[in-house]
């Protein structure tokens, strides 16, 4: 079709007129709309307004984040694909590359937890396999309000079931994740899912519409009316009546179709019949088609009448913006359409030609041959205005941070009782209630399952493995976004090192409130700056991520939660190290230094309901040395276990290592240590000072371990010994002690979360 004929589509008879109110309803400011008019050089049709509003939404356009995100380091010799594609890709050696990315599905999960979480997993899997990688593991990072609320229990159990059922059905093992319960997330759960995929380096494919004249095909599930305008929806705050108002926006996932789509996509990519493939995710066909065109510097033309639909009577607006799940847009090499159909047919899926790649740089949409939208692709995908906002720290948070905690350094009761309260808190307690609902062993690659510091998958045919973790302590980031983010980075890297992996790269999921509020923008800015610094220090570039703003209910934002998803390479599977003590009589060594820091701790939350104080300080260089020391010890074969010290503090870390998996058939061991620091016992036991790892080794390797620590300039000391199977936990601190039979420790830890969720009252919405 010659371009000059089609620049000004006529409005469709049933379309509403584009009024300023309608523009506002679409989330575009008057200034932004001015800009749209300038780009277009004419008035818009209703369909075009829908397209712009989706692409220039926060979710797709990164209006309020893009400028700051440029601060993040994205390059390193091992980075094959940085941000901007469906997922980042790194070289992990031996001819293999790893694709990985994290995504949020917070708003959908707040409305319908099961489907919201399930479709979140579905979306992130598609981001991975559209790169040509086979998904090999999933991790999930979750946050909810306190579990005493029935609504929170309903959200939590729905989300876990949704994450589980989807990944289980597709057959991707879950290897870890995290969960936190805190009133800071009441009403606004955070559901972030990370997927990692493996490919041969040469199999990488990108999502671009290259090759003028090539054919656009819609592949997979049909397009329905579900989830229309999800991208805009994800960019708005929840209000009290969202449950009601959002109904049509619920998308239902079909993991079975996803599994077929996964196999078909990998086969398509291997066949050479296609040149590009992209998930129809947020903003559906609109974003996939226009982004693919934008990346290639080409145009696309598609006809909505050719798109297979689930319901009759769908308008172009609906078809373009539907977020029905399990669909892909494929660019087939001209003449290869039948090959694409043949592969899809084998997997019992549909493939339909819906358009072609053009050379005019336009995103043009027809309805039965009549043009309904004609937009320049590059301004649509890249031209969204970006903002740097004003950022000011909230006075309230400043006050909380400078709260005087000295009274809390004196125990409010018996230390042993206090320890049990911390250990039994759902935030600290064993998480099997969650991961026993996740298939963790399918694909026979999982060397370290959930429950340790990081999950590890071995790579068949090599000596290598990959490790992955997600981390963020929202209380720390709330009290001090900079320190909190440094701590999240440090914890993630420590977790990997403890597993025997070299931290290699990160993806991030930035969950924040409304960025137009100065105190939220302040949090966001400080978090991104801190992340950039830590990425530099750890040499872990950012290869992709996701920003989720507007996590607010009735004006109240969640804690700023920049979740770090970090991956690392295990050189040799023999290096894989676990958190659990292995042998009675082994020496227990503390690496790093205790401090008097109680700010933001679980102890304060559990014993005083407080989220206050300075979060622990982070020394990036000391962290780096610690990670290197731990890795050196592991690679020397000197360690029997390594466990990072985080939520709950040192006492909890020791208990976790002693308890091990606590699975039937795995003995829990005792532990006996003495901590003679000149510090308040409460701080030594429960403070969450950074930069600490508890390792164990055979007594005859103790000197070597201490020497390796000294070589790396890491403080280290032997603090005690591993006890007998079923043995007691004994932690002595200056004139006081935590002392408990092993059984009691184990029961408290196992029941802390399961006990709440399995109680009869847990039922109901």
């Amino acid at each position, binding site marked *: 079709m010659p371009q000059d004929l089609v620049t000004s589509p006529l409005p469709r008879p049933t379309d509403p007129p584009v009024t300023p109110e309608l523009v506002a309803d679409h989330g575009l400011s008057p200034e932004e709309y001015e800009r749209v008019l300038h780009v277009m050089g004419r008035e818009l049709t209703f369909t075009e307004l829908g397209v712009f509003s989706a692409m220039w939404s926060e979710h797709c356009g990164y209006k309020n984040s893009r400028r700051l995100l440029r601060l993040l380091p994205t390059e390193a010799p091992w980075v094959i694909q940085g941000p901007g594609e469906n997922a980042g890709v790194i070289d992990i050696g031996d001819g293999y590359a790893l694709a990985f990315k994290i995504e949020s599905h917070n708003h959908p999960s707040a409305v319908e937890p099961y489907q919201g979480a399930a479709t979140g997993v579905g979306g992130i899997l598609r981001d991975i396999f559209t790169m040509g990688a086979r998904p090999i593991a999933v991790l999930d990072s979750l946050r909810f309000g306190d579990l005493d609320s029935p609504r929170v229990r309903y959200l939590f159990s729905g989300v876990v079931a949704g994450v589980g059922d989807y990944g289980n059905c597709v057959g991707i093992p879950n290897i870890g994740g995290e969960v936190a319960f805190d009133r800071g997330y009441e009403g606004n759960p955070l559901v972030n899912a990370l997927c990692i995929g493996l490919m041969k380096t040469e199999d990488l494919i990108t999502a671009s519409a290259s090759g003028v004249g090539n054919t656009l095909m819609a592949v997979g599930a049909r397009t329905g009316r579900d989830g229309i305008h999800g991208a805009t929806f994800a960019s708005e705050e929840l209000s009290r009546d969202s449950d009601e108002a959002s109904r049509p926006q619920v998308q239902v996932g*079909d993991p079975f179709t996803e599994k077929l789509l996964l196999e078909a996509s990998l086969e398509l990519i291997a066949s050479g019949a296609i040149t590009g493939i992209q998930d129809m995710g947020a903003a559906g066909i609109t974003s996939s088609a226009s982004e693919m065109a934008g990346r290639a510097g080409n145009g696309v033309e598609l006809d909505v009448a050719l798109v297979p639909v689930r319901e009759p009577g769908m308008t172009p607006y609906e078809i373009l913006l539907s977020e029905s799940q399990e669909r892909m847009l494929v660019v087939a090499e001209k003449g290869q359409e039948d090959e694409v159909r043949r592969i899809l047919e084998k*997997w*019992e899926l549909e493939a339909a030609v819906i358009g072609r790649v053009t050379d005019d740089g336009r995103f043009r949409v027809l309805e039965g041959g009549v043009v309904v939208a004609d937009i320049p692709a590059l301004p649509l995908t890249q031209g969204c205005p970006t903002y740097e906002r004003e950022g000011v720290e909230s006075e309230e948070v400043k006050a909380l941070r400078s709260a005087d905690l000295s009274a809390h350094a004196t125990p409010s009761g018996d230390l042993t009782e206090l320890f049990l309260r911390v250990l039994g808190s759902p935030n600290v307690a064993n998480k099997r209630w969650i991961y026993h609902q996740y298939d963790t062993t399918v694909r026979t690659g999982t*060397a370290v*399952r959930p429950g340790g510091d990081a999950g590890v998958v*071995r790579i068949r045919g090599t000596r290598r493995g990959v490790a992955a973790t997600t981390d963020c302590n929202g209380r720390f980031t709330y009290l001090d976004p900079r320190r909190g983010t440094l701590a999240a980075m440090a914890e993630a890297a420590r977790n990997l090192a403890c597993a025997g992996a070299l931290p290699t790269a990160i993806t991030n999921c930035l969950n924040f409130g409304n960025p137009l509020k100065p105190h939220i923008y302040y949090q966001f800015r400080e978090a991104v700056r801190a992340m950039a610094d830590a990425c530099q220090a750890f040499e872990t570039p950012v290869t992709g991520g996701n920003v989720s703003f507007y996590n607010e209910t009735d004006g109240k934002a969640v804690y700023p939660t920049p979740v770090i998803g970090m991956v690392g390479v295990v050189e040799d599977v023999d290096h*894989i190290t676990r958190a659990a003590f292995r042998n009675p009589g082994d020496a227990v060594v503390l690496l790093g230094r205790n401090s008097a820091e109680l700010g933001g701790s679980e102890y304060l939350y559990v014993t005083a309901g407080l989220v206050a104080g300075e979060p622990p300080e982070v020394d990036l260089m000391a962290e780096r040395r610690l990670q290197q020391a731990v890795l050196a010890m592991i690679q020397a074969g000197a360690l029997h276990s390594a466990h990072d010290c985080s939520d709950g503090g040192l006492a909890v870390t020791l208990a976790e290592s002693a308890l091990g998996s606590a699975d*039937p058939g795995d003995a829990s061991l005792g532990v006996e240590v003495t901590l003679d620091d000149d510090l308040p016992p409460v701080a030594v036991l429960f403070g969450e000072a950074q930069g600490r790892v508890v390792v164990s080794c055979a007594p005859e390797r103790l000197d070597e371990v201490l020497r390796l620590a000294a070589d790396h300039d890491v403080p280290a000391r032997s603090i005690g010994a591993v006890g007998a199977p079923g043995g007691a936990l004994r932690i002595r601190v200056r004139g006081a002690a935590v002392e408990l039979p092993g059984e009691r420790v184990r029961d408290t830890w196992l029941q802390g979360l399961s006990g709440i969720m399995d109680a009869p009252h847990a039922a109901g919405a």
Partner: protein
Amino acid sequence: MKMAVITFPGSNCDYDLYKAVQQVGGEATFVWHRQRSLHGYDAVMLPGGFSYGDYLRAGAIARLSPVMESVVAFARSGGPVLGVCNGFQILCEAGLLPGALVRNASLRFESRDVHLRVERQDTLFTSEYDAGAVLRVPIAHGDGNYQADDDTLERLEGEGRVVFRYVDPTGTVTPDANPNGSWGNIAGIVSADGNVLGMMPHPERAMESLLGSADGIGVFTSLVKSLSTAAV
């Protein structure tokens, strides 16, 4: 030793079974569910996963796949058939094994290691184990709760067709050791002729201590051994 690993739309443990067979020296071939012939295979394996998404009932749609007529014929002629997890569910739906696998009593997906007691050592699939041996093997299923009517259960027990039972680490049958509510802690059963084994736990995921356990190897070495003895 040629083993057919049948792949249905939604199977996801096909690759794991394939690797397990290879590890014990067998020759594994994927057979797509639309293929009709099983000519030339010495054994047939139905993998775990979610054939057809487990929609309607786990295994209900897969058992109508074209290949299933041949699987039934292969089994009826005495050929060894192993169904793991979803494979077990399909075998029940197809009538090659009695009973049904319904929702786990917890109503949740259950994924963890369990302990199994080898109840019968004189089968094609267990000859390499000691009778009464206790194995550590992963489970991962939502519908593994074995149920049948009283007559069937009586017959299964009377004829000694329960091959694996969920037990605690010491080998004792206890309610706590039962992960899904199965009647009699049943984890795996054989057909009356002994050539069809269905089990919910995944022996193919317990082939290497690196991944947690190597206790599942015996199922595959037993099969290979009995096939090679039969071939002589």
